């Protein structure tokens, strides 16, 4: 294959950019397996010489694995594609990331990516409320989840399992009056928080609990397949993560890693995100079916620096309330 590749590249103009890029690329990602595989497959049709292996897990678990590998002196990953920029900021601070100066971000508004090009947002994943279509009460506000109609019926992802859930907790406690008191109220109302977003999806779509706090694309996508689930953007707004991508300083194949990042933030890569049912980061890419128009999605802002500083404290506060 290696010897054939330059030949093919010379013959087929479409492969011209793949020239010289080959070898192994290891991706650590929090995307669900199917999406990660589709992303890898799309990348590989453009760069057939690159052999991509990926590891999928929740963001906190990916980071734990990575930290063990740092300690063992042999980080495996070349590229990280994980839930949130706060985690990326932490890695950047620790000097673990490699800047990709040549990345073309001209199509994106300022603030989408890291100004020093250490990480790049790939999509917008919001966290809102999902309910089973058999539920008679339809929540429209975060505060609705503390009402008696929802008692014993709410399930949430735990920040110990999900990066989006950690940002969500930081955002909500910053926005709602009373801060962590809101989570105390949820706990008092019988809410459980055990696993990740996947668990929430299963329990709500499966009707074991009627309400869930969850990332948008999961219920919207399963609804399209026929699952009895609805997603609501609450009136106060939603929290959001941007699923950034970054290259590790220790990457064994930085060239392929750069190509992978370029692919994700290219129009083509962003169209793939749309096809998978995500809100693409690229401002001119349309929204997938099932979402309100871009301008109607109200995203609650949050203080990233504070979230980074409070990361451990927030995890502990949540774990304390929900007994983890």
């Amino acid at each position: 294959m290696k010897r054939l590749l330059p030949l093919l590249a010379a013959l087929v103009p479409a492969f011209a950019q793949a020239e010289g890029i080959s070898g192994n690329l290891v991706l650590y990602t929090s995307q669900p397996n199917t999406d990660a595989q589709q992303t890898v497959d799309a990348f590989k049709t453009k760069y057939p010489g690159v052999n991509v292996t990926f590891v999928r897990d929740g963001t906190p678990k990916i980071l734990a694995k990575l930290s063990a590998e740092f300690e063992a002196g042999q980080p495996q990953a070349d590229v990280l594609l994980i839930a949130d920029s706060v985690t990326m900021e932490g890695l950047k601070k620790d000097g673990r990331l490699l800047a990709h100066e040549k990345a073309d971000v001209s199509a994106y508004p300022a603030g989408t990516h890291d100004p020093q090009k250490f990480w790049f947002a790939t999509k917008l994943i919001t966290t809102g409320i999902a309910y089973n279509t058999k539920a008679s009460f339809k929540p429209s506000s975060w505060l609705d989840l503390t009402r008696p109609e929802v008692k014993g019926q709410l399930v949430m992802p735990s920040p110990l399992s999900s990066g989006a859930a950690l940002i969500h907790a930081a955002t909500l406690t910053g926005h709602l009056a009373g801060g962590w008191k809101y989570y105390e109220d949820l706990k008092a109302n019988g809410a459980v928080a055990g696993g990740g977003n996947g668990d929430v999806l299963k329990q709500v779509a499966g009707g074991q609990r009627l309400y869930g706090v969850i990332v948008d694309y999961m219920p919207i996508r399963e609804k399209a397949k026929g699952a009895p689930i609805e997603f609501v953007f609450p009136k106060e707004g939603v929290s959001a993560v941007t699923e950034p991508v970054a290259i590790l300083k220790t990457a064994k194949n930085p060239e392929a890693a750069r190509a992978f990042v370029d692919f994700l933030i290219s129009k083509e890569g962003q169209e793939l995100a749309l096809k998978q049912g995500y809100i693409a980061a690229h401002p001119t890419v349309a929204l997938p079916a099932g979402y309100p128009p871009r301008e109607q999605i109200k995203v609650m802002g949050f203080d990233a620096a504070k979230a980074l500083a409070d990361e451990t404290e927030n995890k502990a506060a949540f774990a304390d309330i929900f007994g983890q």
Partner: protein
Amino acid sequence: MRHRTTNKPFLERGGFGLLAFVALVVFAFEILPALRLLLTALAPGGNPDPAKALAALSGRSALKAAQATLETAFFSTLLAVPLGTAMALALGITDMRGRRPASFLFVLSVMISPQVIALAFLHLAGPASPILNTLSLAPEAGSANPMLGRGGIILVLGLHHAPLVYVVMSAGLKRIPLAVVEAARVDGARPLSIVIDHALPLLRPHLLGAGLLAFVAGIGNFGIPALLGTPVNYLTLPVLIYRRLSSFGTGMLGDVAALGLLVAAIAILCVAVSQILTHRGEVLLEEDAPLQPFWHLGRARATAEVFVASVIALVLILPMLSLVTAALVPSYGMPLNLGTITLDNFAEVLTRQDATMRAFANSLAYAGSAAGLLAVLAIPMAYTLVRLAGPARIPMTAVLETSYVLPGIVLAIACILLFLKPLPLIGLSLYATPSIILFAYLARFLAVVLKPVLAGMAQIDVAQEEAAALDGAGLTRRLIDVVLPSLLPAAVAGGLMAFLLAFSELTVSALLWSAGTETIGVVLYSLEEAGLASQSSAVAVVIVAVVTLAMLALHALGRYLPAGTLPWHCPTEGTAFAAGEPVRADPNAEAPRPAGARPALTV
């Protein structure tokens, strides 16, 4: 006394090398990981700090998890023991039909890995159950899945471990001399009173031993509480250990080592007591024929058959049906009908997802190489332990014995501790390579492979070897010409058994996998956690197919194996009743093992 005289010449001809080799294997795979764990738990960072270990053990979540572990293990044992014992009696002493297939299927259910069983039960109940939805019997939306949480874990653990009890009780039944039953019959005792007055008292040590084993299996189980407890935040110690380490990273190693040590201590204590009890309870004398089915059920036969069939339906058929239906619907929570049925989930996991396909290949490779290596290792090891080790045999087998019952998660931590930093002197790093998983499999399943080989070795007459030695055959020659041919079937059987258990395990690889080295157990868990329940069911169905095939292969090997090697082995149907009254067993078919040469491993 005979041992003394035969041991010496063997040792003089190169036996020391073999003995040293076995000692090295035991040290590398069993003692070294345990020492490393002990060191980190008691002296994190090199300085003894028992206060820190104590703090880790007395935290609120640790205490909660310890309670959850003990209560699920205890109550599931209360379910497993009567169920397994009833099955052992029904299949061991009655004339009901279909005893062999029933025994095979019952034991098959424990060979399917716990997380697959947990997944099946999870999808069996609750408002999302594809089966219940298809039958329009699903409970109302908003009702919790009864499988989630304490009750579900107890039920599934109990059902899953009942076959373990069955295996121990069946072995116990076979050790009751037939003469005991015959004497009682002469006195005019009815079968039921023979069971109550004669058999059960003799079985009491086995009953306690089986109960303790089910309890230990419950303590160390990871797959069932991970799938059924995590979503509702009901965590047992192995799950808490996994969660701490996987969510917070290696900074937690000291804490989790302490927790792991606690789990290990409980497990070792229970196994030690169980070993003492079952050893003390041996009643079969050398000259006695073992127990054969003696209970003519008459009209009650149909009832017994319905009971056995229902148990098998409950532990195996129903969960498997649930997996298949869950794998055939497009999305979790939908009913299965002509309009919704799809093979897309199978296509997705078997043809589109690199990770799943690679995981199947990895699991085949890791489980296969571990099984092969262990089968090769087991022959010289069994030889050494039986012929050469002398008094050293007892501590060595005890160490080997405990390794299998140690919770897998504890072994995984020990491996991380051993191999996280590059190895001293050679500078080689095993962390994040397939070697660390292979090492863990070798350590974990050595005892499983060794068991049948030891049983076979005990049956080789030393005279055969002495004759070869007189002809001038050295140790190597004798091993190859005399020992190897006799032990080969047992080694293959042991290897297959290890393959069966390693192929879909999750407990060990959950903490040890990395990019490109994921096992199929890990992929199943990951799919389930990512919310892709239909796809994880598809993976589970494929796993069950592979495990069933491996078990059928093992079954086909059965007749070449020493008696008692296959845990589902049943007395041949019909023979015991040929003349309308109990017939003495054919001594060749079911020969009692020579005294003192009983296989040391009973798990």
